[in-house]
Structures are given as C-alpha cells and as structure tokens.
C-alpha cells in the first residue's frame, strides 16, 4: 500500500500526544478524565489503522518504516499495554498526587517510540525509536515530583539509559564498518556465513547486545531495574515491564536468530547469550526470594521473565517468543493492576505484611492476584505454563537442554516466591489494618480482561497461534 497507510497508526499516536499536550497547556482541565479517554481513543484508532493492514503490509520512506504482520502483532501488544496502563492510571494518578495530563501525552510518545522500534528494518531508525521511548520513560518515571524515591529512580534510569545508548551506538558504528549497512538483515547475514563474521562485526554485535541488555534488563545489566520499577508510579511500572521488553526482544530476535551457531565466532555469540539467559533466570529468581516489597518482587520477576524470552530467541522460536509476550502482557498487567489496587488516597500498600489477610477481606482482588501469580509461576492450565512450555520445548529440540534445566530450576524457585505472596494473602492473619479504595471500575476491568487473556491463552490459544505463525512468516520473508 501507499506510504500514507504505513504512517497512519504512527501519525494517530503522535498527533494524539500533541493534542493532549496542547489541551493540557491551554484548557487545563482539573479532572483529567477527558484526556485519559482521548488517549484510549487514540490507542483504539491506531489499532484500527493497524488491523486494516493485516496481511497486506505497507512501507514508507523508501522502506525505512515497514509495517509487516510481525510489526502489527507487536504494535497491537503495545496498544493493549497502553490501554491497560491508561485504565489503571485513571483513578490511580489523582489519588497518588501525580495527576498531570502530560502523563497521557508521554505515554503515547513512548508508544510511538515502541512502534518505530518494531517496524523499521534499519538499526539507526530502531535507535531513533528507542530514544523517543527512553526520553519519555525517564519523564514518566519521575512523575511523582515530590517523592524522593521516584526522583532517584528517574535519575538512575536516565544515567543508565544514557550509558546503554552509548554502547548501542558505538556498537552500531562497528557493525556498519563490518557490514557496510545497518539493515538488520544485512547485518545478520554477515554472521550467517561459514566463517561466522568478522571480528569487527562481532565486537559491534556484542556492544549492541550490551546496549539492549540494559534496556531489557538482562543480568548483569539489570541493576537499575528494581529501583526504577519500585520508584515509578505503578501503572508506569506495568508499562515498563511489558512495552520496552517486547520491543527490545523483537529487535534482538531479528538480529540474533538468523545468526547460526555452527561457525566459530557466531557460536560464541550463542554461548554468551546462553550464559546471559541462564544468569538472568537464576540471579533474578534467587534475588526475588529475599524481597519483602511486592512491587520490587515483581520487578525481579520481570527480569527473570526476560531470561525465558532470551531462551526463545536462542531457540529461534519466534512464535514462542510472541506467544510468551502476549501471555506476559496479561499476567504482568494483571499482577500490577492488583498491586495498583492496593492503595488509597496518598498511600500505597506494597509490603508483604500489607497483603496478610487480603484474600479474605477482598475476595475478588485476592483471587485474581493469586491467579496471576500462579500463572507467572507457570502452573497449568493458565497461560504462563503454556508460554513456557512452547519455549522450553523448542529449546530442547534445538539441543539447549542444559539451559532448559536451568530455566526449570528458576521456575521452581520462582514458584516459591510467587506462592509466598499467596501465602500472605490467604494463610496469614493480618498484622495491620489495610483499607483500600475499591471504587475503581476501570481497574477491575483491566483485572478481568487480564484474567480472560490468561485463561484464553492458556486453554484455547488456537487462533492466536495461527496469527502468530503468519506474523513470523512475514518476519522471515
């Protein structure tokens, strides 16, 4: 299709963001509900524009922006993430004194960055997207201006993000030297040959992996994650756990999956990534064992999940990767929405002790949170199990059995810390009085949508798998 069609979703999102900014500047609504509604509308509009291109595809700017089926799948995941974030934030922000209209504009801008990242075949454009995303993310993190923790998180994120970008761009420069191009396929092709690529290219690829390692929080580049996740407002944390991670893995998959593991040098890349994956799963799970703050615990859980996703990349299992991300969208947002519900005006309850007795006091909230945690722990018949099953099964077929054993060990450890939260909710007597606001219909909408997603994807994912297979075909083509 024409240039314009590929640009429409992006234009809708960016236009929406600017409109919200202008409205906030000149209209200054006291109640930000219209802005939230507008953001939802924008997400829906972009989704409709994307859906129209399914199976057709479109490209703009001489192929620099290409909306193929895979890009559409990822965009839809991002749009859902943004919609969930807006719904969670709707009541949450005013109650936590962080109610500014810019939130919605920044969120949409971050979304546009994500969309650029997954829909460009050129690494420079990918980096552009990444920077748009990052700058908006720094601001979103520090949204609670009076909160020390939030400010610390924002600064930390900013500094670490800057580092990561430096690694990334230097790596790109080296890659360009090796491949004479920054087209992802051309770059990957230089490593696919029998000699496994030049040393220059290898160095570049390693630097790029480090850069992305920071962004998607792989151990040992994860140190910023718990602080940022804990300091950011809960809806923003939920968004961080899904959006940037999905985009980062989309790029990493396209870059690394075609790299064969036969030749000497490219085999090294696989070995290094395998070690990173193993470390990420184990270290994150072990550290999570000691957390008493549930938000921080979920941050470590999100790091551990990055490890599972890296296994999917190594196994070359694109369908498994996208399926895991789709399931993770629902599990993670469900869990964070439940966490956001544990709050009242000016106060949030994230300590493990606060969760004691919640299961009896707020049965619906407790049950839903327990279901998301159990799904994260990977118990069937919920989505989390099936997602891990596909990834690990593909990895065993590729001969990555040791890595799978590490992953299963990490799952066992993770079962302990997820179930510990459930223990507190259902099996402990309350130690302090926790009163939360329950009048949050939008939040419960998110919770139930996520429940539906976790169950549907866990039990009858049939059609979604077909969609994902088609998307993968467009990616490899």
């Amino acid at each position, binding site marked *: 299709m024409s240039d314009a069609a590929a640009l429409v979703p992006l234009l809708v999102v960016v236009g929406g963001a600017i409109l919200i900014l202008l409205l906030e500047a000149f209209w200054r609504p006291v109640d930000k509900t219209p802005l939230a509604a507008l953001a939802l509308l924008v997400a829906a509009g972009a989704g409709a524009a994307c859906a129209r291109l399914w199976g057709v595809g479109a490209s703009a700017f001489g192929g620099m922006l290409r909306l193929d089926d895979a890009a559409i799948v990822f965009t839809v995941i991002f749009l859902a993430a943004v919609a969930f974030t807006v719904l969670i934030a709707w009541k949450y922000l005013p109650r936590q004194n962080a109610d500014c209209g810019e939130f919605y504009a920044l969120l949409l801008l971050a979304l546009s960055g994500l969309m650029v990242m997954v829909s460009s075949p050129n690494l420079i454009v990918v980096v552009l997207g990444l920077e748009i995303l990052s700058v908006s993310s720094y601001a979103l993190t520090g949204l609670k201006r009076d909160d020390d923790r939030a400010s610390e998180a924002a600064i930390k994120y900013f500094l670490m993000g800057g580092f990561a970008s430096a690694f990334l761009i230097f790596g790109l420069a080296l890659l360009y030297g090796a491949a004479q191009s920054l087209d992802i396929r051309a770059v990957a092709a230089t490593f696919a040959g029998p000699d496994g690529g030049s040393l220059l290219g290898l160095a570049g690829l390693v630097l790029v992996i480090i850069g992305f390692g920071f962004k998607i929080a792989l151990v040992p580049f994860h140190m910023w994650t718990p602080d940022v996740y804990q300091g950011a407002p809960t809806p923003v944390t939920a968004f961080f756990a899904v959006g940037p991670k999905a985009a980062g893995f989309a790029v990493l998959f396209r870059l690394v999956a075609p790299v064969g593991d036969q030749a000497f040098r490219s085999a090294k890349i696989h070995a290094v990534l395998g070690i990173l994956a193993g470390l990420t799963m184990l270290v994150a799970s072990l550290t999570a064992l000691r957390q008493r703050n549930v938000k921080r615990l979920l941050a470590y859980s999100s790091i551990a999940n990055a490890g599972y996703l890296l296994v999917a990349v190594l196994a070359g299992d694109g369908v498994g990767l996208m399926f895991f991300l789709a399931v993770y969208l629902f599990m993670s947002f469900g869990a964070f929405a439940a966490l956001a519900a544990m709050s009242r005006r000016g106060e949030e309850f994230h300590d493990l002790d606060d969760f004691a007795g919640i299961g*009896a006091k707020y049965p619906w909230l407790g049950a839903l949170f327990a279901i998301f945690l*159990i799904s994260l722990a990977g*118990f*069937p*018949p919920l989505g989390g*199990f*099936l997602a891990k*099953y*596909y990834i*690990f*099964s593909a*990895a*065993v*077929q590729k*001969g990555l*059995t*040791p890595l*799978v*054993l590490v992953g*299963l*060990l990490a*799952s*066992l450890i993770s*079962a*302990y810390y997820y*179930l*510990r939260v459930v*223990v507190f909710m*259902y*099996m*402990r007597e309350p130690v302090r009085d926790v009163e939360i606001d329950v009048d949050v219909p939008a939040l419960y909408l998110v919770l139930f949508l996520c429940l539906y997603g976790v169950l549907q994807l866990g039990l009858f*994912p*049939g059609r979604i*798998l077909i969609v994902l297979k088609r998307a993968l075909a467009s990616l490899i083509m």
Partner: protein
Amino acid sequence: MPLLSLIIFLPLAGAVLLIFFPRDRKGLLYGFALALTLVVFAASLLLYFRFDPAAAGPQLVEKTAWLGYGIQYHVGVDGISLFLVLLTTFLLPIVLLSSWSYIRDRIKEYLIFMLLLETGILGVFLSLNLFLFYVFWEAALIPMYFLIGIWGGKRRVYATMKFVLFTMAGSLLMLAAIFTLSSLFFKATGTYSLNVFDQARMVLNPRLQTWLFLAFGLAFAIKVPMFPFHTWLPDAHVEAPTGGSILLAAVLLKMGSYGFLRFAIPLFPDAVERFLPALSILCLIGIIYGGLMALVQKDVKSLVAYSSVSHMGLIMLAVFSLNVEGTTGAIYQMLNHGLSTGALFLAVGILYERAHTRLIKDFGGVSKIMPVFSAFFLVAVLSSAGLPGLNGFIGEITCLYGVFAANKIYAVLAVMTVILGAAYLLWMFQMVMQGPVTNEKIRAFPDMSLREIACFAPIVVLMFWMGIAPRTFTGKMDATVTAYVQKLKGRERVFVQKAVPPPAGFRLDAQERLPR
C-alpha cells in the same frame, strides 16, 4: 455422550457455579457440592457397567486436537485407571460430608477447592496424552496447596510449601523429560505425538532411557512417596484438615504409583530393569522404616501418615515385581489403602473434633463411651492390618505373591509390612480405645452422629465386599494387566551397538527407531 469428559469436568463446572453462591448459606453450599459429587459418582458407576472387561486397551476414548505439537485432548479408561477413578468419586462425597463440622470458616472456598481437586485427580487418572497428564498433575497441586495452607493446623504454611515445592521439583524434571520425548519422537518419525501409546512404541537407547526414567521416576517417587523422598508426607498429612488428609492419602499418593504403571515403566522398560534392585531396596527400606516410625509416633495422625509410607512401599514393591499377580495386587492394594487409610483419617478426625487433641496419651477407654465408633474404628484398623475377610488381606497376599514370584528375599522382608502394621495399629487401638477411661473429658464424648455414620458406613461395607468378593473388582482389571505385563516381557530389547562418544552433558543424539 462423552462420559469421561463429563466425569472430569462436572466438578469443575460445579466449582465455577459455587463462586456465585451466597457465602453464608452453609446448607445450600454443602447440599449443592454434595449433590454434585454424588452425580459424578453415579456417572462413574455408569462407567463401571459400561466397561468391557475383555478389552485390554483404553475404552470410551475421546480424542480431539488441542494445542498442536502432538498435544491432544485424549482421555480413556482401562483396567488400571477404572477403579482409581471410582475410588476418587466414591470418596469425594464422604470427604465433603465429613467436613461439615470441621470446616467452620470460608466454607465456600473450601468446597470450590475440593471440587477443583476432584477434577485434577480424575484428569490425571484418565489422561492418555503426556501433556494433558502433566496439566492435570500440576493443576491438582494448587487446590491441595490451598486446602492445607488455609484450613490446616499450626504449621500449615510450612507443610503446604514443602508439599508444593517437593512435588514441583519432581514434576519439573518430568516436564524436561516430556520435552525430550516429544523432540525425540519428532526426530524419529517426523510427526509430533505425545500420545502415551505412540511414545511407548519408540525404542530408546538405554542410556537415554536411564535419564528419562530418572526424571519421570523422581516425580512419581516423590508423590508416592518412596523413601527417601517421603519427608513432605508426615508434615502435609498431619497439618492438613481431615478431608484433605483423606484425599491426600487415599487418592493423591496413588497418582505416583499410577504414574509408574502408566508412564514410567511402559515408556522406559530397560531402565526400569536396570534400576530394579535399587528401587526394590528403597521400597523395602520404606516398608520397614515407615513401620518402625509409626511404632514410635505420639500423634495418631502421624502414626497413620507413617503407616502410609510403609503400605505404599509394599504397593511399589509389587509394582516392580513386573508380573501379573504383583501388578494386580498393587492395583488392588492401592484401592484398599485408599479405603483403609481414608477410614483411619476419618476416625482420627472424629476423635479430634471431640478431644481437640490427637496425642495417643490423651486417650484411653474411648470404646466404653463410644461403642458404635469403636466398632467402625476396629474394622478400619483390621482392614489396614490385613485381617482375612477384609479387603487388606486380599491385597497384601496378592502383592506378596507377586513379589515372591519375582524375588523370594524381597518377599520375606516385605512381610514385615504385615507384622509391623499389626503391631502399631493394634497397639494404637489398644492405647486409645481400650483400658480404663484415663481422661475425664472423654466421658463427655457423644458417640458417632448419623452424619458420621453415613460417612463411615459405605467405606466399611466396601471393605467387606472387597474382602469377600474380590472378583467384582479384579475381573475388570485382568485383561489390561495381562496385556501390560505381556508387552513388558515380550518387548524388543535393544543394546548399545557401539561405544558411545564421551558424554557431552545430556545430548539427544541417541539412535532411536520405531519398530513395525
């Protein structure tokens, strides 16, 4: 009518409906759950009558595509699983009825978890696809986790976490083995299948079998539990509420021994043969150790728990005898153990509700005050100890017969289970029920209520029935068991053709092929 699916998913449907019931209407909640489990029991009785005793393979099979990659919804019943299904559906109404006065708060959740547990257990026994089996196997864990954790005793959180983590550690290794089997099957045939019968046709290299068997075997050995993986059991049994203990001992443990019969042994016969001495010795240690531990327990409930370790040891020894008598005996003894241990836990629960203690020293002379209860309890004790005329005798004698045919020394040692069993059970019965009334509180105990008799009576009837007319039951097993043993004995043996390359970890490059 898809009878098996109906049996599996009716409890699940009931659990979902229960969510919308008012939480303070105790009678309504119990009535609904009880009626539902009775319907499920009736449906499984239908299963019994429809079951063709002459056919060896699975019957009433339902099979539909589900998730691709060889993952199918595939259920069927055969002579091995038929009675385990019946045992489950038979015990569930009893368990619910026995909980009436024991469970005071959060009744609705209790009933929901009980029904979910029933679905999980029935799914485990009826699945014929490895993936489906694993899904039910793990799904059954969650309700039990809540049942122990919410309604259990003082150390319930510790006990339930231990139970979950032990079971999960085993089952995750089994999952890795399932991945490997799936991948091997694909490499050998070019198609995916996790159907247990397709998988059993694959002849694997013994070295690979060893690994895979260890993974499967560990999962099942933890569940049974076989010595030395039994440490979760006393904790879980003692802390669980009465209903949970009954189901745990009577049915959940059987998932382990069933797993050996259905999966571990048919899939990896060479590895089983290789490990047979080690496995049998573990069983013997379990028999003797469990029995000795039971002798020194101060708490009636942990005495019954350790008696389970001992009895399950005999069952597993019979399973590993790999002959028709031993296998039949093992299945029969699984049912017996389900009934007798279920009855013993029921009796302990009845005592506990009156005395709020389970320590043996706090009791004495109860039979004078509670004569009806005493009679029921005695039957349960004698059934567990293997008195002729009751079910336990038939099971134990068949098991021992099978073990004897396989190895005489094992049989001699295995008789210890009967001797020790009689010792600790009768000693406990004597201390608790007979002699003078030592504790004045006992005088105030009311005898069994009608509800409690209604719980206990069906079990006692069945004990006599199984002890007097075992053909009612074994008649439906014979064809399956004979075919199972024949397949095991008559299988094609493979040997390593040439020196294997040095082991580079756990590689999947073994020679595998499909016989015609």
